[in-house]
């Protein structure tokens, strides 16, 4: 639903980078390469990278059915 605060595997805080990652790779007019964005954001390990790459915000989808 909301992005996990920390990486499940190593415990690094990944939520901090989520909004910029989401904006640059999915919402921007010219989406950038996710691998490059993650490198620039300093998300190095593949355990942390999968946290952001595989996440989908669901709050907007769930909200009307409350």
């Amino acid at each position: 639903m909301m992005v996990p605060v920390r990486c499940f595997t190593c415990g690094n805080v990944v939520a901090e980078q989520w909004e910029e990652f989401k904006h640059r790779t999915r919402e921007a007019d010219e989406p950038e390469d996710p691998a490059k964005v993650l490198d620039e954001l300093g998300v190095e390990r593949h355990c942390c990278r999968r946290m952001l790459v595989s996440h989908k915000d669901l709050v907007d989808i769930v909200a009307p059915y409350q």
Partner: protein
Amino acid sequence: MEDYEVQFVDRSEREARFVVQPITPAFANGIRRAMIADVPTFSIDTVRFIENSSVMFDEQIGLRLGLVPLTTPPGEFQMGEEVTLSLDVEGPETAYSGDLESSDGMVGAADDKIPIIDLKEDQRLELEADAVLDVGKEHAKHQGGVAVSYRHLQQVEVVGDAGEFDDDDPQILRGVIEEQAAEDAVETGGYEPEDGQLVPTEAFDNDLTNRYPGKELEVTDVDGAFVFDVETDGSFSVDELVVEAVGTIEDRAAELKESVQL
């Protein structure tokens, strides 16, 4: 008391890599474990909800709050001491960790942009939370160190020239090497060859053939020298984490010495 030599390879506020020598593997692992399990940090433990009309349950928000790293000045607080934080956000807006207001200026969210919950129109989140000082042994949310690891320092010896018709396969090596064969090395990644220099393998793209072209090589571990990779979650700096961790080992050693004395 023994003296140890510490050399930094990389150093920043939250991330560092350094070589310690001479230590035994057991002591290196002791330091690693102390960094993970024995250095206390603040973390939200109890949450009192005043209003929560968001799409998430109280428990889910409690979990997210617990994982937010809080700044913890070493030596200022006793184990089990509590600090109260409060959060009051009304939609449509996202509640961030930066919205947490602390009763103590020294303790607060280490990162301000962690989204707690996205609030829609007419939704509101108001709560009071108690952060408690405890160690990683008790709960992973109290771990100050993230992905703390160590490995042997390595040295590369040139044992001869590569055969004329040998395959030019890459020779992958990861970690940090101590330069021992400067006359056969070429400059890579800004590391001018010089004996005794510490070179991270990223400097030559983790491939030894880039640094020692056309040579036959032998890689060995340096006895008693360990490269530590330390990262913190932002609760404190790397320096503070390492010093505090070594301090806990020293305290326990002193306690043991005292209790076995006749």
